[in-house]
């Protein structure tokens, strides 16, 4: 169940998705690790599925964001238009603040 509050990043903030190399029931797919996007929205706080999956329930709730990435940043050879994007849910501990882009688009 979701709890409110707890947002660290604001909508539009640039973030980089880390590669924590963590085994087990992690919800950060390989294809977005070490990629940079922006905060699309804040979802709220949830129990960490990386703990819950192993029966460790009732622990602290952690912030969950929807992060939006440009397809061309995900796949350098992406064949579609520059405007195409992908959004997915990333937990706070997989995120770090990213520098502004070198060239504004």
């Amino acid at each position, binding site marked *: 169940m979701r709890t409110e509050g707890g947002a660290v990043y604001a909508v539009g903030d640039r973030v980089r998705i880390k590669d924590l190399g963590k085994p087990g029931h992690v919800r950060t797919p390989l294809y977005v690790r070490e990629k940079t996007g922006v905060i699309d929205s804040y979802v709220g706080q949830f129990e960490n599925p990386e703990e819950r999956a192993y029966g460790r329930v009732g622990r602290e709730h952690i912030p969950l964001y929807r992060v939006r990435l440009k*397809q061309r940043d995900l796949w350098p050879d992406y064949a579609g238009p520059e405007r*195409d994007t*992908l959004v997915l849910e990333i937990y706070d501990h997989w995120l770090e603040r990213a520098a502004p882009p070198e060239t504004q688009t």
Partner: protein
Amino acid sequence: MTHDHDHDHDHDHDHDHDHHHDHGHPHAHPHPTREDDDLELTYGEAKFIALRAMLIEKGVVTADEVRRRLEINDRAGPHQGARMVARAWLDPDYKARMLGDGKKAAIELGIQVTEAEVMAIENTPDVHNLVVCTLCSCYPRSLLGEPPAWYVSKAYRSRAVREPRKVLREFGLEFPANVEVRVHDSNADLRYMILPLRPAGTEGMTEEELAALVSRDCLVGAALPGPMPG
């Protein structure tokens, strides 16, 4: 987990009879009957039956609770999501509530929602949305029923994020370059449904008529609403 099998499996499974010729007929004429499909338990069915028996024996659940939950599962289906879409097309206030909290909006229409969170995503003239779950097969089953085979296939799960326009073309959808294709990977705690654009020429249609235009695939972004064939 899917439990879309017939759950009436509590009979004794002695398999020493011949499954295919035990009709009690001395002659062999062609029967238009359907082959029984419950003669052999699958691994999943056997596991479900064993687990249910243990949970009932230990008093964790009752047989009636399990039955009720299976009934809820069977009431689910894309007609539920379609009802929400039709209501949203007719009622801007409902649409706003639905985009704010998809679960509450479903409950408002009397739908039993078993998911913790449902997010409705709106297609616009500028953005077409497509849903995928790359890590498994997350799907808002209360509102859409069981996912189609293609949705849980590895091909769709890997290609929808890698070459979404090519995948959409295979579904018969082509968008110009000035429309953003936005893929939503259902990778964590939310379950997604798409609110499609209302088709032109549907002014004056009733809520029921509108709902009939919204197929299952529209609700994940793999199709656009329109008259069903046939």
